[in-house]
């Protein structure tokens, strides 16, 4: 054998030899530009992402325009609740005189046969005087009529007003002294209804029309819209929203890990970083939504979050012993066969790769304030608030400072805190009504934890920032 033959043998055997590539090597090699986080929401933006962004922006603009249109259009529903009396009571005139402690309502010169010069004295009530001084003459003065004097009591109108005033004075007086809230108005209106049974339909129209005209003449349209409406109100115009909503949601999450050194070696941090790889986690929970008015709402609830992490650790100098038993037959002479059994052990030295999924779990209470706008079908909201951590724990394995993999659990996690305190939360929500009381919503969010998840004993500081897309249902209660 020549040296060339020997060399050629080695070259031919090894020139195309391949060896297994260690797991995770690409993560260390891939160019820095690819590794650098571009931010959660801007990651992998392509044509589809731009289209979604354009749709989102378009929705916001349409929602805003719809909302503005909604504001500029008068509350037609509210007005429709008050019959237009011009057609039936064309000649009626109303004057309103305030003198000292007495307010006089003249409802005269009507073509109707039951109204002539009826004069009603209004109660000497400070609250009413205040309203009167402010130029307000709401319909709800009717329930507090007191000591009314009717100059020509023979008319149906006078009888009706007299009955109504007597019926309502006692009960409404106390309420008026307390305040003039909507509850009082509604209560009064509820009491009016039995009285109104005495009215002819045409007379009801006449009264309402007269008062309406009076109020319109004084420019109290706004006040009417909010208080005078005794028929079912337009909910969206009320100042205080009594609705409650309940949200159920789940979200895929992506976490960004940030680690800073305290007392560890750079080698340890590098090794730790190379063994851990963030993966998709999730959150799920429920929230109770309390609208403060048409736009502002408060949310709180309970949520569970799980951050997943892949831990790959290579254990060097792994020794594997295999026992090999070889059986041979030796023929010594014809007919004489001996079976020989050799036992040997094969020692293989290599490495083993251990892959474990670490889980960082937490239970939190979010508390957010949101502003939402849009129409009944599509609503867009912006939310911001805080997240209070109740409990958090880390389970899995991690490298300790001697580069050995050690297990950790809820009980034995010596480096990690069981409560990470408070975090900041912000989100944008898009709600689409899917039936009378249910909305489907999508809410991209970002959570920024203010504190480290590690404690003082840890050789490094670590915290997770979480982004996700909550998808859920909002159920309107109290409708």
């Amino acid at each position, binding site marked *: 054998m020549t040296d060339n033959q020997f060399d050629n*043998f*080695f*070259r031919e055997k090894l020139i195309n030899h391949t060896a297994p590539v*260690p797991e995770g090597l690409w993560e260390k090699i891939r*160019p820095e530009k690819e590794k650098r986080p571009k931010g959660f929401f801007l990651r992998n933006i392509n044509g589809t992402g731009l289209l979604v962004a354009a749709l989102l922006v378009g929705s916001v603009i349409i929602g805003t325009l719809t909302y503005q249109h909604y504001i500029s259009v008068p509350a037609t529903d509210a007005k429709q609740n008050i019959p237009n009396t011009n057609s039936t009571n064309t000649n009626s005139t109303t004057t309103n005189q305030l003198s000292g402690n007495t307010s006089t309502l003249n409802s005269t010169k009507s073509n109707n046969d039951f109204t002539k010069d009826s004069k009603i004295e209004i109660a000497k009530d400070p609250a009413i005087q205040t309203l009167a001084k402010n130029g307000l003459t709401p319909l709800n003065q009717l329930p507090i009529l007191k000591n009314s004097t009717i100059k020509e009591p023979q008319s149906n109108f006078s009888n009706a007003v007299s009955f109504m005033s007597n019926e309502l004075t006692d009960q409404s007086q106390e309420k008026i002294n307390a305040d003039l809230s909507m509850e009082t108005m509604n209560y009064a209106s509820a009491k009016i209804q039995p009285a109104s049974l005495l009215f002819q339909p045409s007379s009801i129209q006449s009264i309402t029309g007269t008062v309406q005209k009076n109020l319109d003449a004084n420019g109290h349209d706004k006040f009417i819209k909010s208080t005078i409406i005794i028929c079912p109100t337009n909910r969206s115009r009320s100042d205080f929203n009594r609705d409650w909503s309940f949200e159920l949601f789940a979200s895929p999450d992506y976490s960004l890990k940030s680690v800073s050194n305290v007392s560890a070696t750079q080698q340890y941090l590098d090794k730790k970083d190379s063994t851990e790889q963030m993966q998709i986690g999730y959150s799920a929970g429920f929230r109770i939504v309390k609208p403060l008015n048409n736009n502002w709402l408060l949310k709180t609830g309970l949520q569970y979050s799980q951050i997943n992490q892949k831990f790959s650790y290579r254990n*060097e100098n792994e020794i594997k012993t295999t026992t090999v038993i070889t059986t041979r037959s030796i023929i010594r002479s014809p007919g004489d066969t001996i079976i020989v059994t050799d036992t040997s052990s094969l020692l293989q030295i290599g490495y083993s790769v251990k892959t474990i999924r670490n889980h960082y779990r937490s239970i939190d209470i979010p508390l957010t304030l949101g502003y939402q706008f849009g129409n009944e079908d599509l609503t867009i909201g912006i939310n911001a608030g805080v997240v209070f951590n109740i409990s958090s724990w880390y389970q899995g394995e991690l490298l300790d400072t001697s580069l050995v993999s050690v297990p950790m659990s809820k009980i034995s996690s010596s480096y990690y805190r069981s409560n990470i305190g408070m975090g900041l939360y912000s989100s944008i929500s898009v709600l689409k009504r899917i039936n009378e009381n249910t909305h489907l919503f999508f809410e991209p969010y970002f959570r920024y934890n203010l504190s480290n998840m590690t404690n003082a004993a840890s050789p490094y500081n670590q915290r997770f920032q979480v982004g996700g897309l909550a998808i859920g249902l909002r159920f309107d209660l109290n409708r």
Partner: protein
Amino acid sequence: MTETDLIKGCIKENAHCQRMLFEQYAGKMMSVCLRYANDTMEAEDIMQDGFIKVFQYLHQFKFEGSFEGWIRRIIVNTAIRHLEKKKIQFKDIDESGANAPKLDPYTYSHMGQDDLMKLINQLPDGYKVVFNLNVIEGYSHEEIAEMLHIQPGTSRSQLVKARKMLQHQILQLQKIAV
């Protein structure tokens, strides 16, 4: 996707192409690294540094000659730089028997790639580097001398001794097998 498209994609920093290129050549290059390194950890370090240089200098590739050869040169140079840090010594090891043993090809023809890798890895650093560079990679002694900052004669003698040591080891294995 052709190799040219792949390279152009990598030059344009297309992440998908970079990943594909790595996966295409990682196995062979890891084998190269293992032949020069003393253990897998060191081989991994060489591999990491080598591929970072590949992506860093890819725009300098002229599309002339074998692309695999170009990558291999970078990996080998990286391995040599790593070995230089350890200050490898090209010492002569005194062995009994001045002449190399006569080996028939059938004595080692059955040996597999992994067996040969183990044999090479058992060589002293100086022998191993020269044997790899000359026999496997095909560099001349003058080129090796320039790369390792040694005399061409040193390279030749290291190769002869490496070859002799390998043949001895093969003979030893043969005796154990019998």
